[in-house]
Every structure is written in structure tokens, then in C-alpha cells.
């Protein structure tokens, strides 16, 4: 484990930013949120627990160009516009978001590999930061995530006046050695003490005891047919807030944009909550919001685990709890369906 005084954070950021882009959570005055921004001299790390938008944007941006076409007469030219991503570092990712990358990896890096995602993933170094002040909406522990011991290429803790860093991957080792001049070797006493302290707070989390036992692949049809979906979804507006702030929602749409001198094929986030998500020429198998709402939660709690060794595709970051316009969310769904089971 290595350490650096918090007062020297700026030096660390400067050193990292001298060789590649460094992103970190920064307080945004206009929104009152923390958001990932590029570091430059004068930018300081936010104290907020987490960013309003998740960190998935770094690897799976809201919109991205896939390929260009030039059309002339009857001919089509396909133009591969992909370029090698630049190296970058994301500093201050929380444990929940760090887990979300594993979940996205299982989708995008499964064969056939999504080269757009892989390209960014390979060039990004994730430096996590352990949580010290969880919110009431946090329930990552339910999914077996330890917010005091976040994953990532490098795990980080800010305890007292010091930042502690410990590499988990080769990429992480390389990152630490690139800034080794600023770091000193250290034991992990301070980190351990902080972890013990935060774990006491975690015990008090109101959603820390959500019960996931009914959500297993064997119960797929039973959960699908639950009577509760109707009343749970009754007030749903069919907007995409929950899916767009979610670190693990990965559905996308592919669209063409005619620029007037060519076609740009791009992909953008899509939401299973949208009425046109499954619309096709012959009809729509999910006609009402009940089915769309059900799809989202069944996917996170049953379908995904069924295809991925029981791993849920929710990380308990609490963003959808904080952002849903009608305050309907996965925690309420887990409780309601759990009661029934």
C-alpha cells in the first residue's frame, strides 16, 4: 500500500494529467451535483458521495458513432471511423460503479466483442475511492459489494489526512509506478480503522437488509406472472431517468443520421421503459407500461443472473431511487415481490 498526503492531491492529479486525461468527480455549481469532469489546474475533487450520472459513460457513452456511409447512385461505401482511444484515468470511482464495469464487461466483452467498448475499456485506468458517508439510498451491500474495499485497477481510501492507494491489476501497478515519485510506502492501519468505522454505519443503512432470495432463475415464471407488477407500474411515466442514470443499464438503439452528405450510423442509450423499445413492423410485444416496467426489473434481478452465474445486474448505487420522478424503484419492487413470495 502506498500513501500520499491529501494536501498533495493536486500534485498527484497534475502528474497524472501530464501524460493523459484525468477525470474525477467535481462539484457542478449549476446542478448542485457532482459530475465527472476533466481535471485541469484549479479543479478540486468533490466531497459528494457519488456523481449524478454513473461512470458507465466512460466506456459506453450516451451516443457514439459506429460507422459512416457514403451513398452514390446504387453504390454504398462503408467508412470505418473507429480510432484508437486515448489513455485516460478515472479517479474516485465508488465501489458500486466499479462493480458495474464487471456487469457491463459480461455483456460487451462477450463474443462477439464490442470493439467500441473494449477499445475504451483497455485504455482506461480505474482508480476507486472507498465510501465513508453512505446515503440512505445505498444498498450495494445487498449485492455483496463492500464499499469500504472498492475494486478497480487501483483501490483508494482517503483516511484522515492521507490518501492510500493499492493496485489490483497490472494496469494499476503501472499507474502507481508512473506516479511513484509522489508516493510513500505505508501500512494499512489507517485504512483498516476507517473500514471498521464505516462498516458500523453500513449496518444502519435502511435498505441494507433487502432480501434477494426470491429472485432466482427457478422463480422466473412465477415472478413474471406476479400480480404486483400492475400496481407497482401504475404511476410509471415511461421516462428513461432510471435507465439513464443506472450504471448497469446497457440497452441501446442503432440509428442513422443523414448529414446531407452521408449517413452516420450511431448508437444511443435506449430504455426498456420507452413505448417504442420493442416496436417493430408487425407490432409490439410489450404494449403497456406494465410489461415494460416488468422487463426492467426482471432483467436486473432474474434474466441477467440466469445468464451470468447468479450475478445481479444492479449494484445498489441508489441513483434510480434518488432520481425517479415518481419515486418508484428497484428497492420497492424487491420488497413488494418479496412479500408476495
Amino acid at each position, binding site marked *: 500500500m502506498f500513501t500520499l498526503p491529501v494536501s498533495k492531491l493536486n500534485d498527484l492529479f497534475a502528474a497524472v494529467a501530464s501524460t493523459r486525461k484525468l477525470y474525477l468527480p467535481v462539484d457542478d455549481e449549476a446542478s448542485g451535483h457532482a459530475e465527472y469532469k476533466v481535471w485541469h489546474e484549479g479543479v478540486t475533487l468533490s466531497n459528494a458521495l457519488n456523481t449524478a450520472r454513473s461512470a458507465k459513460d466512460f466506456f459506453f457513452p450516451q451516443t457514439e*458513432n459506429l460507422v459512416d456511409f457514403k451513398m452514390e447512385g446504387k453504390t454504398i461505401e462503408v467508412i470505418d471511423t473507429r480510432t484508437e482511444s486515448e489513455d485516460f484515468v478515472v479517479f474516485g470511482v465508488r465501489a458500486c460503479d466499479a462493480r458495474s464495469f464487471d456487469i457491463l464487461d459480461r455483456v460487451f466483452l462477450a463474443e462477439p466483442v464490442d470493439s467500441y467498448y473494449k477499445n475504451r475499456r483497455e485504455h482506461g485506468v480505474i482508480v476507486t475511492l472507498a465510501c465513508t*458517508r453512505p446515503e440512505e439510498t445505498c444498498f450495494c451491500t445487498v449485492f455483496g459489494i463492500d464499499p469500504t474495499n472498492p475494486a478497480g485497477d487501483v483501490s483508494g481510501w482517503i483516511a484522515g489526512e492521507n490518501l492510500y492507494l493499492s493496485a489490483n491489476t497490472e494496469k494499476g501497478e503501472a499507474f502507481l509506478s508512473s506516479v511513484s515519485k509522489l508516493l510513500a510506502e505505508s501500512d494499512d492501519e489507517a485504512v483498516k480503522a476507517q473500514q471498521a468505522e464505516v462498516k458500523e454505519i453500513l449496518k444502519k443503512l435502511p435498505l441494507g437488509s433487502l432480501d434477494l432470495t426470491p429472485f432466482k432463475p427457478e422463480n422466473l415464471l412465477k415472478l413474471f406472472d406476479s400480480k404486483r407488477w400492475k400496481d407497482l407500474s401504475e404511476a410509471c411515466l415511461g421516462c428513461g431517468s432510471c435507465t439513464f442514470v443506472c450504471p448497469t443499464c446497457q440497452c441501446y438503439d442503432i440509428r442513422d443520421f443523414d448529414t446531407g452528405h452521408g449517413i452516420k450510423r450511431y448508437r444511443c442509450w435506449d430504455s426498456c421503459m420507452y413505448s417504442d423499445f420493442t416496436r417493430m413492423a408487425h407490432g409490439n410485444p410489450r404494449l403497456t407500461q406494465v410489461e415494460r416496467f416488468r422487463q426492467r426489473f426482471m432483467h436486473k434481478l432474474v434474466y441477467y443472473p440466469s445468464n451470468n452465474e447468479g450475478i445481479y445486474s444492479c449494484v445498489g448505487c441508489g441513483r434510480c431511487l434518488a432520481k425517479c*420522478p415518481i419515486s418508484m424503484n428497484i428497492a420497492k419492487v424487491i420488497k413488494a415481490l418479496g412479500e408476495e413470495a
Partner: protein
Amino acid sequence: MQSEMIKRAKELLASGEVARVVGWKAGEFDYDITPGVFTTAEELDSAFLYNDLCEANLSKYMIAQSRKEGKTLVFLKPCDTYSFSQLLKEHRILRENVYVIGVPCDGKVDVDTVKATGLTGICSMTSDGETVTVKTLYGDSTMSKADAMSERCINCKSKKHVVYDELLGEEGDVVADNHRFDMVEKIEAMTPDERFEFWRNELSRCIRCNACRNVCPACSCEKCVFDNEQSGAFNKGASDSFEENMFHIIRAFHVAGRCTDCGECSRVCPQNIPLHLLNRKFIKDINELYGEYQAGENADERAPLNTFTTEDVEPSIVYERGGKQ
């Protein structure tokens, strides 16, 4: 008030006058209240709620609910009745299938406003009408209700119900002296560069989740132009700053003259974009150029963009009166 409301709802359900009740449902932390549909007395007893935290405007739900079998009882706050009345005017709600009970409101406590004061880990939040008590994972605190209200409630436009079948509590008045255009004026007073900067900073945060559109009682089109692949404006995620601008200009324009300024758009925006400032700009312009107009207030009056006078000002007036140069 809550118990009175439950009592009336039960009576109407029991008499068969209404088949269901639309109100607010308790959540996990006092503040995460969900609009809910209740069909039995038991459901009302266990989950129905009305307090200083019931922010949601229930009027838009009546588009769908009024098309269901039997009558629906809905509780509307004064400002919700403006939206309801506007929807009636646009023939979006079947009035005969709705039983409206007006309930008083003296401003709602907004969790985002409370969070903006720096409180985190809010597990419980209660208001006694004067003081808000907040219990968090990191200790308890209190604040005056005025400090916990969102801007739309501080600048409340009316405490009077414009439509109802029955009123509970005391009827209030239109608030003549509100300051809801102050911020619009402030923006108008900026230079064009500052204004551009201001709005780019705000609109570039948009994630196109459509929450503002879907919650808006004035946005009741069967198919939105932005969802229509044939419209030429179809877009699901803004791929360019132009698309961010266009979405918000058109969203606001399409509700111009019909927006009652209920403020739901800004309340639900996950990115805290002050969308109401776009709508209010239109309202302010309409008031100044075509005479005072409050959407939803009067069922017979024609909406300002559905009418004209031969003496209307020319568009070139914008060159003279527009914002600061």
C-alpha cells in the same frame, strides 16, 4: 387533512360513486412518495398519504384513469387544478368520469432543496407546517419549512382551486405578488454571450430521459414529434449540442400558452436543469405582448397561440425589446 381525505375517499368508494381513488402513496423514507391508485378502504388505510411532502401533480394521470370503467376520485392541490382545467379545455380528460376533490396546499417540502443544504443520508423527513425535522444517518436537524421548499412553491402563483366537485379545507386566493419572473429577468439582463453560456451549461447536462416531457400535463400528445421517425426531428439521445437545444426549445414551444407553470418539469429533472425558466420566458412574453394570461384559469378563453389580433406586434419587436445586447 389526511384523515379527512381518507374518510371522504372511503365514503365515495363505499357508496359506489367512485371506483378508484388517485392519491399519494407512502414510500420508504417519508419523502419518496409515489402517486398511487387505491380501490379499497384497506389500501387507503395502509398507504394513503397527504402531507407537506406530496409534491406530485396528479392531473395528468386522469387522461388514462378517466377512460377506465367507473368514476375516478382524484385529489388536486390548487396548482394541480390549473393543469387539470387546461387538460379539460384540450378535451384530454373525460370530465364526467372524474370526481375532483380540491385539497389545500401551503407549499410543499422538496427533498432536493433539503439535500442542497448539505444534508445527506436522509432517512426521514417530517413537516408540521412550520418546521421540517430531518433525521439522517449522521444526526438529526430542523429547518424552517420556507427553507425546505422548492422555488415553485416559494413563488406560488395561486392557492385557489379553479375546478373541483368538492373542496376540503379552506379556499385560498390567487397570489398576485409573486416573484416568479425574477430569474427570467435576470437572464434577459445578461449579454447574449452570457445567456448562451448560461444555457449551454444547463442544457448540456441533459440526458434526454424525457422525464420533463412525460411528467408534463401539457405534453399529452399521443405520439411526440421526437418519437416520430417520420418527423425528421426524431431523436433519442442528443448526438450534438444542436439536438439538445432543439429538444428544449421545441418542448417549451409546444407547451407555450398551455403551460400552467406547475413546475413539474424542473422538479423531476434528474440533472436539475431549470426547465421552468424556458416555459416562464414564454409566459412572460405572452403576458407582456398579448396581455396577461394564465393557462388553465379560464376554460372559455382562447389560448394565446390559438388566437390573434390584427394589432399584434411584429416579430421585429424582438430586435428592440429582446435581451440586453
